[in-house]
């Protein structure tokens, strides 16, 4: 059984998917994300998450079944209702994911959106959720996939 204890969960927004859809090698990254989601020791098949509202915002960029293969699409939890804007909802949701193993989370977004998250009052003094974008996000996904490949090779 290929099972990997990844250091962080992955939460993404629609901006990341739209950014990814414009990148060379996007199919490879999508494949990596699907492998990571399927092999997580702590959150099997739920390691990578996207809020349903965010997933619906990029329906025109990616086939829904492949989005579901790479990210678990989740309904907005009731505790997010009191937040009006999507930035707050996504940040608070990401912070809530760090209450369970592996207790850390990366929020994947676009380079343009990264600063908006970082300026939010909900992000003040937060250390368990890291906002990453662009090539840094790709490097993290590749490093997670390398961990998967290593575990798979050992199992063969």
């Amino acid at each position, binding site marked *: 059984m290929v099972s990997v204890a990844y250091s962080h969960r992955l939460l993404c927004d629609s901006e990341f998917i739209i950014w990814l859809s414009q990148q060379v090698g996007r199919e490879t990254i999508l494949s990596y994300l699907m492998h990571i989601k399927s092999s997580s020791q702590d959150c099997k098949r739920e390691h990578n998450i996207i809020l349903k509202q965010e997933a619906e915002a990029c329906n025109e960029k990616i086939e829904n079944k492949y989005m579901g293969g790479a990210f678990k699409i989740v309904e907005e939890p009731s505790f997010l209702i009191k937040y009006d804007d999507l930035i707050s909802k996504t940040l608070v949701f990401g912070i809530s994911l760090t209450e369970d193993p592996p207790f850390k989370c990366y929020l994947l977004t676009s380079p343009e959106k990264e600063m908006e998250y970082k300026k939010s009052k909900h992000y003040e003094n937060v250390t368990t959720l890291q906002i990453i974008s662009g090539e840094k996000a790709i490097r993290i996904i590749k490093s997670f996939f390398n961990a998967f490949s290593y575990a798979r090779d050992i*199992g063969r």
Partner: protein
Amino acid sequence: MVIMTAEETFLTDFELKEDIIESYSNNPDIKFDDLNVKKKIEAFPSGTLLEINKKIGSPITILSVKEVNEALLSSAFK
């Protein structure tokens, strides 16, 4: 040939080879329309990610599998 009834839905799922083998080994409600599909799954190397087409009814029937690779994902982005 698969005939869809009102109680049945079709679903595409993505699982590692080991997971799907565990599923059908431990769950008698998972069946195969064609046993060649089962043989095909077992022939993949460990850690292969598979796209699985299922018919969700009673039982759950695994209809087909494909390896998830870049060729398969070339149609993912619009």
